């Protein structure tokens, strides 16, 4: 097989990426505007109720809401291409600035949650595979199935009830206590419960995947030869099997980034954690169009990017592609026999 020119290969991926973003922006723009609700509420608050018809018209004109939808989209797209995503109606400042303030919090929660899930799932999967069908594996499988079925909003509420309301051990909302913005320890304490929910919710899904992939691998014939030469089960799992499932695990985890990120959006809302997830729910609720557009585009970009990365990893590790690259060496080996 002839390998594609890398410029063409990545160019195609980039095109898909941009096209998907364009379609996403169209969808979000029209759906959000066709959905019921009054964007003026988000800008003027309760005063909207007392506004006269003229005042409303003036306000709509000011925010550019009185034109037809395609014209509005055209104007938004033109500005967006120049890097201007408009102002947030609620915060009265650049939407990108509002997000800039919060995105760090989300990255901390999502990032640590993702890494914890990634590492713990691997460990748990190996543990289950090692003790296949022993009581530990059976117990973990059952507990895991149950925990992964608990909805995250409910789990969040229960954890808040237990650990912050009843036991008063951990804070149940926000990212830091008032006045402690720069206190690292305080921030960490605030992260414990949201992180616990992120991890508990996603852990088993991935651990089970690792377990099953390993068990498939353990049944491969090379494991028998490894045992026949005197390797212990532990060495076989760590040196041989794990190595063989890592590529597919990595590509799986790349796909899982949006999955885990979506989870943090809900968790942020329940924990009133000031990240872009909470911002997203707020802006959708109050028709803060510009903010909503930008958040959707950023989230969408992450999702599409992660899928493309997963796709690239997958194509790279496909043994048939490796085979084709080595075909000449293989023939040499055959002839030299």
């Amino acid at each position: 097989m002839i390998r594609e020119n890398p410029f063409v290969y990545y160019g195609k991926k980039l095109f898909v990426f941009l096209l998907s973003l364009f379609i996403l922006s169209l969808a979000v723009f029209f759906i959000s505007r066709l959905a019921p609700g009054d964007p003026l509420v988000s800008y003027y608050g309760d005063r909207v109720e007392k506004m006269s018809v003229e005042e409303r018209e003036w306000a709509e004109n000011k925010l550019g809401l009185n034109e037809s939808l395609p014209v509005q989209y055209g104007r938004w797209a033109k500005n967006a291409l120049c890097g201007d995503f408009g102002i947030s109606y609620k915060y009265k400042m650049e939407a990108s600035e509002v997000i800039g303030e919060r995105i760090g919090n989300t990255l901390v929660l999502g990032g640590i949650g993702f890494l914890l899930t990634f590492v713990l799932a691997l460990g748990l999967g190996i543990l289950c595979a090692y003790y296949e069908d022993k009581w530990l594996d059976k117990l973990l499988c059952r507990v895991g199935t149950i925990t992964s079925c608990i909805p995250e909003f409910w789990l969040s509420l229960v954890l808040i009830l237990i650990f912050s309301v009843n036991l008063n051990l951990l804070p149940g909302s926000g990212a830091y206590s008032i006045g402690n913005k720069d206190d690292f320890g305080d921030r960490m304490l605030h992260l414990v419960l949201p992180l616990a929910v992120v991890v508990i919710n996603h852990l088993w899904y991935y651990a089970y995947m690792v377990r099953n992939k390993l068990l498939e691998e353990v049944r491969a014939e090379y494991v028998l030869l490894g045992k026949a030469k005197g390797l212990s089960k532990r060495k076989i799992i760590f040196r041989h099997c794990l190595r063989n499932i890592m590529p597919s695990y990595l590509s799986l985890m790349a796909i899982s980034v949006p999955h885990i990120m979506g989870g943090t959006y809900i968790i942020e809302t329940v924990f009133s954690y000031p990240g872009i997830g909470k911002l997203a729910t707020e802006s959708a609720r109050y028709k803060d169009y510009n903010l909503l557009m930008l958040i959707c585009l950023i989230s969408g970009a992450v999702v599409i990017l992660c899928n493309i990365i997963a796709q690239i990893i997958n194509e790279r590790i496909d043994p048939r592609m490796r085979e084709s690259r080595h075909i000449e060496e293989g023939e040499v080996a055959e002839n030299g026999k």
Partner: protein
Amino acid sequence: MSDILKIENLSVNFRSEDGESEVVRGVSFSLKSGETLAIVGESGSGKSVLAKSIMKLLPHNAYIKEGEILLNDIDITSYTERDMQKLRGSVLSMIFQDPMTSLNPTISIGKQIAEAVRLHSPKMKRADVKSRVIELMELVGIENAEERYNLYPHNFSGGMRQRSALAIAIAQNPAILFADEPTTSLDVTTQLQILDLLRDIQKKLGMAVVFITHDLGVVARIADRVAVMYSGKIVEIGTAEEIFYDPKHPYTWGLMKSLPSFAEKGKELYTISGFPPSPGDLPKGDAFAPRNEYALRIDYEEMPPMFKVSDTHYAATWLLDSRAPKVLPPVRRDMNV
């Protein structure tokens, strides 16, 4: 020569949802150091399971029901996995049928052999390990070993892979090598090369080989002694000469008659009619009786014991009882296999 391996009345059962099936039934044989014993039988006759049960490489659902495995007069039947790890590779070793799957696809050939070298001598220096690996690769007939050290299994042809697997198996000079149909998946010329190589190495290292195969042609080329298995039992055992020139069991006759070299020109190749019984549902009496043209009434009633033909030759058929009618074997004595 003394017996290094002695198997006494070994039975291996498989558990399944439909109940137990007896795959190896009361097998006894012994192996002298340096000799080659071929175990011949159809697929499903339990020959491979027999070897794996001695190596303790049985699948989860199989277990040794009764019997003894004596290695150098030490009973290893109840050895734990940890005890077996010390024996595997250094005393007992094994190669498998399919060299395509018995090597780990993601680790280079050199490293896979090095792993076996280092296993029982962990203090060996890196350079010494490498030179030992190259020595082994040359011993099994891999040319340009130094260059091929870093190649992967998929760069190698089937024959080269089987050579690599053999290098792994003999890395620690085992006393006994189990070869589980090592040439079945190879083409005919490669088959002969591997067989000659195996003989050659066996002489150099003085190891005993238990060669499992369904191919009598292969047996003639390599075996000192032959055991014929049917439905989990050894039905006839003797020196290669005795089995080939003076077979006593009707099943051995059938196997001989179905060899292409025995067929008369222009006539169809002989086949033993019918199928072997399922190990979960064995008939009463001799399991071969329903397919046996020479079956006596007692064959359907009672399992024949091992009748002694000579000090080295035994066969389990009622035809050898003094009261049985004399049957002339249908296989020519001067047969050239």
